[in-house]
């Protein structure tokens, strides 16, 4: 186990809105080592994107980090001033965002947008930066790279644009790459290509990858460790292998169950998770998943369960965890 690159502890983020305070992230802790791929899985609104934005200090205007630490390179990212954070952004920690159409500036050429981080962080001049830009574009698989530098974002297809975004993110050889729903806005066939690309690139460079997504399939193929997030907290963390074969948290179980299976019988019912996501306008005072949970017990309604290790490397936040073989039984036996 290598020394972690980034260690986050008890991160809390809140937003001020006209309807009151939104408790978006309520005490999460995780770390990520060089070269490791960590997946953060959860539904929309669970706070996973907010986490990464908070680390880089680019939250929306009304967002505030209200607690926790994030140690990176011996410094707490959450306490750094913007001027100091700026030197880390793009250079040591880079991000790839969800929608490549809107994440690229429509009035600037791709070349310009690639050169920007190189010029700012490495002080390269235009020709040096251009050469490096061509290299990067080739590495992400864009043909005729040299000519393409002068093109604008709207002249690329969705998949191509995401490749460009990845190229931009990797331009300064960051230690950590955060990919926030990198394939959600893309066609299914392209998704696989982009994920493959990401996998190759980070392993070549020994870059740590934090993959944020709601798609279990993406996580299964890419990540060594997985954290399942709900209502601003981690519900279950562990290796991908453990979580996918023996999920212990009812939410994780629910997520796995809700994926329709191609090999299911025609009469097999779909199993959605009942109810809707928790209202985040109040701090959690009970298990946030309790209202939707089949396994809830009385204690679930009285306090927030702590995150506890249920076996080495596998933690669960639950007063009544699912039996270890439950998922296997269901999967092999058919409907629950």
């Amino acid at each position, binding site marked *: 186990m290598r020394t972690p690159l980034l260690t986050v502890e008890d991160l809390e983020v809140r937003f*001020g809105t006209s309807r009151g305070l939104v408790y978006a992230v309520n005490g999460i802790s995780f770390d990520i080592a060089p070269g490791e791929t960590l997946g953060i899985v959860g539904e929309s609104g669970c706070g996973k994107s907010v986490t990464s934005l908070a680390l880089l200090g680019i939250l929306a205007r009304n967002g505030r980090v209200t607690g926790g630490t994030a140690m990176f390179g011996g410094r707490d990212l959450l306490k750094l001033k913007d001027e100091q954070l700026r030197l880390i952004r793009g250079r040591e920690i880079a991000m790839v965002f969800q929608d490549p159409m809107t994440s690229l500036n429509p009035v600037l050429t791709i070349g310009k947008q690639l050169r920007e981080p190189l010029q700012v962080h490495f002080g390269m001049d235009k020709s040096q930066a251009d050469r490096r830009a061509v290299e990067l574009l080739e590495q992400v698989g864009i043909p005729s790279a040299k000519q393409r530098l002068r093109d604008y974002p709207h002249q690329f297809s969705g998949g191509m644009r995401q490749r460009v975004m990845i190229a931009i993110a990797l331009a300064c050889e960051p230690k950590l790459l955060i990919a926030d729903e990198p394939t959600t806005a893309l066609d299914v066939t392209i998704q696989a290509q982009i994920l493959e690309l990401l996998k190759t690139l980070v392993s070549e460079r020994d870059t740590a990858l934090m993959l944020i997504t709601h798609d279990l399939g993406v996580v299964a193929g890419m990540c060594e460790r997985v954290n399942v997030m709900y209502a601003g907290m981690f519900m279950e963390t562990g290796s991908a292998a453990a979580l996918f074969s023996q999920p212990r948290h009812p939410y994780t179980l629910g997520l796995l169950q809700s994926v329709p299976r191609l090999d299911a019988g025609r009469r097999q019912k779909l199993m959605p998770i009942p*109810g809707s996501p928790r*209202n985040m306008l109040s701090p959690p005072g009970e298990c946030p998943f309790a*209202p939707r949970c*089949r396994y809830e017990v009385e204690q679930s309604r009285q306090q927030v369960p702590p995150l506890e290790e249920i076996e080495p490397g596998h933690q669960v936040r639950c007063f009544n965890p699912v039996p270890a073989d439950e998922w296997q039984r269901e999967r092999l036996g058919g409907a629950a």
Partner: protein
Amino acid sequence: MSIAELESREIQLERPQGLWSEAWQRLRRNRGAIIGFGLVGTFVLVAIFAPLLAPYGPREQNLSLVREGCCPGPSADYWFGVDALGRDEFSRILYGARYSLLIGVVSVAVGLTFGLILGAVAGFFGGIIDGVIMRLMDIMLAIPGFLLAIGIVAMLGPGIWQIMIAVGVVNIPIFARLLRGAVLAQRENDFVLAARAVGVPRRTILGSHILPNSISPLIVQGTLALATAIIDVAGLGYLGLGPQDPATPEWGTMLTDTIRYLQTAPHLAIIPGIAIVLAVLGFNLIGDGLREALDPKLRGRA
């Protein structure tokens, strides 16, 4: 536990309300809009109750006051001073509200009605009809509004009704464009397609489905058009194109020729101008408030 029971235990964020009551809530919290309503409310009340509030008649002359030249400023007897013919400014301002209000409302009504019809027809029927109508609107918009109004008044001759028509006509292309845009946007909406699939006649679709949804931008634009109408009318009055009887207490006309007296009687120029500004400001505040209340997306996000 059944899904139905689980669903019923959901925590609701808040009870959703209709579009209008939500908008009303937002409007009520908007300080600017409240001030606007206050100003416009005062304006309307003054217009209605002018005869009761004014100490003198608007055309009542007392030439002895200006025998020594123009013009006495504000005093205890004459709160806003006296004009070149010995008339009480205060009373004239009060009566002037009637003219501004009347002319403003009528012109906007004219523009709205014709603009609405043209725009709805163009948007709904499309094709050549749309093309012709819109070309015509473009040509009208090719001349800056105020100049177009001057042109129309030149054609019709000066006078109150003439400026009402002129300013009204200037408003037509604006409303036509607005409504056409709204109709076009709605036309492809699913609920319209659904109505057609069931066989609802086009006329009814237009009246019962499309128009009600296009109302919000209309309300906003209507209020703002009122503000502009009052300014334009004052401008035409200032140029001498308004009521031809110089005794008429129209605010714009009251400003004509006051430049000569800036040195000796500045109140003659300042007071009617401030009245205009306050009335227009009131409508602008309301219009802005309405715009924000009916579509909060327009505001910069927090």
